[in-house]
């Protein structure tokens, strides 16, 4: 498949008075056209920062310190604000966690959809209204044409998130960044929104970068998955391979720590400690203080991503077993 987005050795820094925090460190990955790439990790892993850096919405003083972001053959990381603004919305859509804060409470949802479409596409108000109603129906909003006149507060959480998805897809972008799109929703609504995202991505051929902390959402939606820890990708590969036979001890531990209904264990596997803060990232492999199978070299030597069983993992254990 053709590569749509290519992130190469991306480094995002936040300079502070005392030190420069590295929140995304040497991250490289590709997203193919029409592919759903999941990015999973616990809070503080740098997954949202990666997404925000790609769409050029980093809040200063956070900045891209090194690396390249190439989208459809074009460098994004050094694009000026105006050029980035026309690209966002038209070519790249975004869905964020909280639907209430990503919609304007003072405008009807029809107004917001029509405005976005007429800004980016060469169509009339009338065509935009028809397009908006069709799109709302497509994302599963009942009585879509009448709902155009509704304000965000008149809709339930699930309906609002559908509107946000409609906004992200309204200009038929090639790529959508979805940051925790179902986290604020109830389970039954989450299932509906996941199903809808999958369908729209297939039908429109839209690539999605799906950022989530929930392995269940990854298992349901993602074609490939990148697991992040302390600002770095520590494992990336096809979803099934990564989830069913993880190669990195962190991924393995993460999977075993999730309670599963038909597997009632006496106790869950627990990873001692927690994600390191960005001002205190351990040397060598950042996971080594919590790793049950660390080697001597892990505390000073940083492992790079290397191929294991069809995926890539950054762990010295795999190198040790290979040689």
């Amino acid at each position, binding site marked *: 498949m053709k590569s749509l987005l290519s992130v190469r050795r991306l480094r995002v820094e936040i300079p502070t008075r005392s030190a420069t925090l590295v929140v995304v460190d040497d991250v490289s990955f590709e997203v193919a056209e029409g592919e759903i790439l999941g990015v999973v990790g616990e809070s503080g892993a740098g997954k949202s920062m990666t997404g925000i850096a790609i769409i050029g919405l980093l809040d200063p003083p956070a900045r891209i310190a090194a690396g390249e972001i190439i989208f459809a053959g074009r460098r994004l990381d050094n694009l000026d604000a105006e050029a980035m603004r026309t690209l966002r919305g038209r070519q790249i859509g975004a869905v964020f966690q909280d639907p209430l804060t990503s919609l304007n409470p003072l405008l009807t949802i029809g107004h917001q959809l029509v405005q976005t479409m007429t800004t980016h596409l060469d169509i009339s108000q009338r065509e935009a209204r028809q397009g908006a109603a069709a799109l709302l129906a497509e994302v599963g909003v009942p009585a879509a044409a009448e709902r155009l006149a509704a304000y965000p507060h008149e809709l339930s959480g699930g309906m609002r998130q559908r509107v946000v998805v409609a906004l992200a897809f309204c200009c038929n972008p090639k790529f959508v960044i979805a940051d925790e799109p179902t986290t604020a929703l109830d*389970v039954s609504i989450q299932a509906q929104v996941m199903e809808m995202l999958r369908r729209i991505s297939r039908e429109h051929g839209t690539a999605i970068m799906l950022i989530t902390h929930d392995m269940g959402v990854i298992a349901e939606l993602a074609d490939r998955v990148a697991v992040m820890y302390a600002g770095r990708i520590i494992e990336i590969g096809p979803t099934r391979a990564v989830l069913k036979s993880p190669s990195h001890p962190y991924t393995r531990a993460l999977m075993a*720590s*999730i*309670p*599963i209904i038909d597997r009632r264990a006496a106790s869950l596997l627990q990873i001692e400690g927690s994600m390191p803060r960005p001002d205190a990232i351990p040397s060598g492999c950042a996971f080594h203080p919590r790793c049950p199978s660390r080697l001597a070299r892990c505390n000073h030597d940083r492992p790079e991503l290397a191929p294991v069983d069809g995926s890539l993992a950054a762990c010295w254990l795999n190198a040790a077993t290979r040689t």
Partner: protein
Amino acid sequence: MLGRTDEVLSVSGLTKRFSTANSVLTRMLSGKNRRHVVHAVEDVTFSIGRGSTLALVGESGCGKSTIARCITGILAPTSGTIDFMGVDMGQAHSGRALRAHRRHLQMIFQDPYASLNPRWRVGRIIAEPIVTHRLLESRAKVEARIEDLLLLVGLSAQDAMRYPHQFSGGQRQRISIARALASEPDFIVCDEPTSALDVSVQAQILNLMRRLQERLGLTYLLISHNLAVVAHMAERIGVMYLGRIVEIGEAGTVLASPLHPYTRMLLDTLPDLEMRRRHRPPLKGDVPSPLAPPTGCAYHPRCPLANVRCTHERPQPINTGGVVVACHAVAEGRASQAAMLRTPPS
């Protein structure tokens, strides 16, 4: 449950309604004298045996947290009785007897960032129940107790001198647990204790809660929206929908062979970590507003098995094989045929 006397908590016919009436002035000016009533909890009955865990599960707005708040006395129930170790907690909000009784009951909250006083040192936070209930007389004894509690929940004695902001989310939840244990309670209400935490930290807290339960003989009421967490922790499960318990019974039975269509739907929507790509029936609809719950069975607008009877007649709870379920389809035997059509779990 017949003839079982060792029940820590027994709730009967608990109902909690909130009035969302506009202010007097607004009503006068608009000329409308409408009073809306939110039916948060309607006629809920359950009991919890000593040393066991009952989980209440349901989506947001189903009333599970309101039940927790009624039991702990944060809210006064509209009607019904809450019998906690022989005393009705719903009545009489003053009185020394009730106050002394309260020390046997503690609560752990969802957000460990909001439930700890940021200006107090951890030692003072944990000591608060001891001081309030005058459980230990000397300062030295209180300090020794704080140290014991910190070690019990996996923190260190020096942590007593630090402030909450110096701890991570998981550590803060350990502090909440230490505070809850300080008054040596029999019963702890845990309202979404891990939903603000990352999964690896969630596993630590769930394991800690199970260990403490075995060691101290604690009884838990666990409130959660996460069925997998509930399956891991609870002996019994009550599934709530729009203020009512629609199904309650032994956890293994309810999860392995759910009877109520809503319970089935909840289980069907769980993301499939094993990636078996099982078939799922399509879902429809939102949770209705508790301001205007549907007539009859509240689940009927979303239920694949609903018929005319479901739309106007409220189903009464019936006991089938130890599981109590409120559903016409189950009572009439229509549900079992549908269950046969459901794809087996493996």
